[in-house]
């Protein structure tokens, strides 16, 4: 690698970005924590009864909910797999959209369902939180398993039948072996989502003592007495648990299974058949969404605080989406092996680290941008890099023989291939960024209050109508984003 070459500069940019995103926050964080690291006080804190109780409590609710999600997700995936392809495609699309909806929507849905079912006594307990997780995460799990099942060659099943395999044997030796690595990865992702779930626990759990590690970290720093070492002790447990689960999952897979591609992403190809009808439906959905939002905003002068919050969310989402994708490409060509770092970090702890490092800058939207880019980058890498790895080397060589530079050859051959996926990922990041609460809530003060945090605050103040209105806008924005993404793909 020559100094001054394109690769050299890419690495410099990637290294600089990783220092800015991860290095400096981590350094300041460790510096702050080390002030209290005397006489093993910190270790004592890590093993203190209070922290251990929180760990056990979080693990308990996570394992219970994870178990239900696992069984329900597998059943749902096999049920959908048994449907005819067209129906399967439609259900998969609906579930994909359902899963993209913000967690505040699931809070609203769970409240409504429990009230309808006469189970109001479950509210403000862990039972309601667990119901909400099951409703929200089961489609994600099912979609992941379904994707793996659809990748199975049905002729292999036929081959097994000719060898005398019964249905149960086929289930054990073919289906289970095929889905096992993916199920492991999906389970880890579900645990990550549960461990880092914030709004659901705060709004449906009703606050202390119904805390998980994530909400306890927030409690540790939200009041006047900021207990950073306390938050760090909780965060260490969170990271250790996730890393431990990952190792168990790896040990559980045989060598052969680990060699198979692991499907981390759940998103399948969205349906593009019957383009005319489909695009028409999407245009109607988008149009209705825009009209409803316009009606809500126009009912107040200058759109009111809701409109301001929505605008801030949109700016933040656009920035996070663009910067994450640019950095994903920079890391791919520069420092690929480090792009996975931070995948097991919680949004809350990332916020704290960034706050420690750049707090003086006092540009909350920029700090949120940094946190969310660091949060989404590993996930984008995992979805995008396998696609970038499937290079069309022969075609690129052909382009170079015709006089194209390396960059021009890549732009001509590879870019059109990856562009639809890049657009899709951009929309998803935007949607997730808009719905994010825990990575934003610490920075929300004064005039800066993005829509998800605004809605959460309304709920927390028991102003349900305002909160629902915020969730409605979030859902509509999500639907418009999905519609635009699918429309582009089908076009």
């Amino acid at each position, binding site marked *: 690698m020559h100094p001054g070459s394109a690769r050299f500069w890419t690495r410099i940019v990637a290294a600089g970005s990783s220092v800015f995103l991860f290095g400096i926050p981590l350094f300041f964080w460790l510096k702050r924590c080390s002030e209290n690291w005397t006489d093993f006080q910190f270790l004592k804190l890590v093993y203190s009864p209070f922290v251990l109780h929180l760990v056990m409590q979080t693990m308990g609710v996570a394992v219970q909910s994870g178990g239900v999600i696992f069984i329900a997700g597998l059943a749902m995936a096999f049920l959908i797999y048994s449907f005819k392809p067209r129906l399967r495609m439609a259900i998969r699309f609906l579930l994909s959209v359902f899963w993209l909806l913000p967690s505040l929507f699931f809070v609203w849905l769970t409240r409504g369902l429990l009230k309808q079912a006469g189970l109001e006594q479950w509210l403000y307990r862990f039972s309601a939180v667990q119901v909400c997780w099951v409703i929200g995460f089961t489609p994600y799990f099912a979609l992941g398993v379904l994707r793996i099942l659809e990748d199975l*060659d049905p*002729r*292999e099943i*036929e*081959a*097994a*039948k*000719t*060898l*005398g*395999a*019964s249905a149960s*044997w086929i289930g054990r*030796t*073919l289906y289970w*072996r*095929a889905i096992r690595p993916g199920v492991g990865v999906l389970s880890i992702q579900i645990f990550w989502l549960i461990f880092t779930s914030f709004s659901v626990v705060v709004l449906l759990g009703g606050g202390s003592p119904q805390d998980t590690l994530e909400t306890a970290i927030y409690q540790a720093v939200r009041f006047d007495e900021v207990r950073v070492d306390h938050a760090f002790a909780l965060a260490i447990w969170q990271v250790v648990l996730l890393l431990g689960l990952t190792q168990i999952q790896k040990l559980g897979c045989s*060598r*052969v*299974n680990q*060699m*198979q591609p692991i499907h981390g992403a759940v998103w399948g190809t969205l349906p593009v058949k019957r383009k005319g009808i489909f695009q028409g439906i999407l245009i109607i959905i988008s149009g209705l969404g825009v009209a409803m939002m316009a009606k809500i905003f126009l009912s107040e002068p200058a759109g009111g605080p809701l409109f301001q919050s929505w605008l801030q969310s949109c700016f933040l989402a656009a920035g996070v989406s663009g910067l994450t994708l640019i950095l994903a490409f920079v890391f791919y060509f520069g420092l690929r092996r480090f792009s996975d770092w931070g995948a097991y970090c919680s949004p809350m702890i990332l916020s704290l680290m960034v706050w420690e490092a750049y707090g003086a800058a006092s540009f909350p939207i920029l700090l949120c941008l940094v946190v969310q880019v660091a949060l989404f980058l590993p996930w984008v890498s995992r979805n995008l890099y396998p696609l970038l790895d499937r290079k069309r080397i022969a075609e690129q060589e052909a382009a170079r023989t015709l006089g194209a530079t390396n960059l021009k050859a890549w732009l001509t051959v590879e870019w059109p291939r990856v562009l639809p996926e890049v657009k899709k990922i951009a929309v998803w990041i935007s949607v997730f960024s808009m719905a994010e609460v825990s990575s934003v809530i610490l920075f929300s003060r004064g005039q800066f209050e993005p829509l998800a945090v605004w809605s959460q605050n309304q709920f927390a103040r028991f102003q349900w109508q305002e909160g629902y209105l915020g969730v409605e806008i979030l859902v509509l924005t999500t639907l418009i984003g999905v519609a635009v993404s699918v429309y582009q793909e089908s076009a």
Partner: protein
Amino acid sequence: MSDVFLKLENYQVNAAITVKVEHCVAKVHSWIHVDAPSGFGKTTLIRGLAGLEPQVGGLELEGRTLTHLQARDRQMGVVFQDHLLFPSMTALENVYYGRWVRGQLGFRREKKNALIQEAKHLMDLLGLKDRYDAPIQGLSGGERQRIAILRATYWKPKLLILDEPFKGLDDQIKLKTFDYLKDFAANEQVCVICVSHPTDFKMNAEVRLQGITSGEPSHVRKFVADRP
């Protein structure tokens, strides 16, 4: 007991195209060569025989009617054109899969080890030494083909169906594989139905099922045995 081992009488496979065999009989340990141009329905016929397509008519093996039986109950080993090995298993696991699912490996360690050793020995015979634990993704096309042949024969079926078994093999391996199949058919007294291009290999088939193009509607393919 009649010496007819395999009998097809007005046998018809109803898949995307319809494939018909009016009459064909074969004795034990005989080779049937299916010969027809590409796209004629050879693979459809084979899938029908294996029980993977809807079918009507008479199909008998050792006097037992198979038409209504499921694939797993037909006692037919199939070597598919695309191998269709199980990617979630090693090469060795693929070879003994047929015995495994039939519970023949049993629970006794000695018996299981003996059967696995036998599978390894067969792999050695076909030049697959030290490939026992190789993942399927790491095998070459020729190696996959040989694993597919071993998988179809190791559990000792009564009828062996080969869909272009020598495709992609070099001449030396082709000879070795053919010798293995010949010995297997002779030792186990099985009947072999083989689809292969005439240029692939010269075989002394007892019966030739040949595709004829005239006298049938366009969606129907008819195969006629040259020694009815």
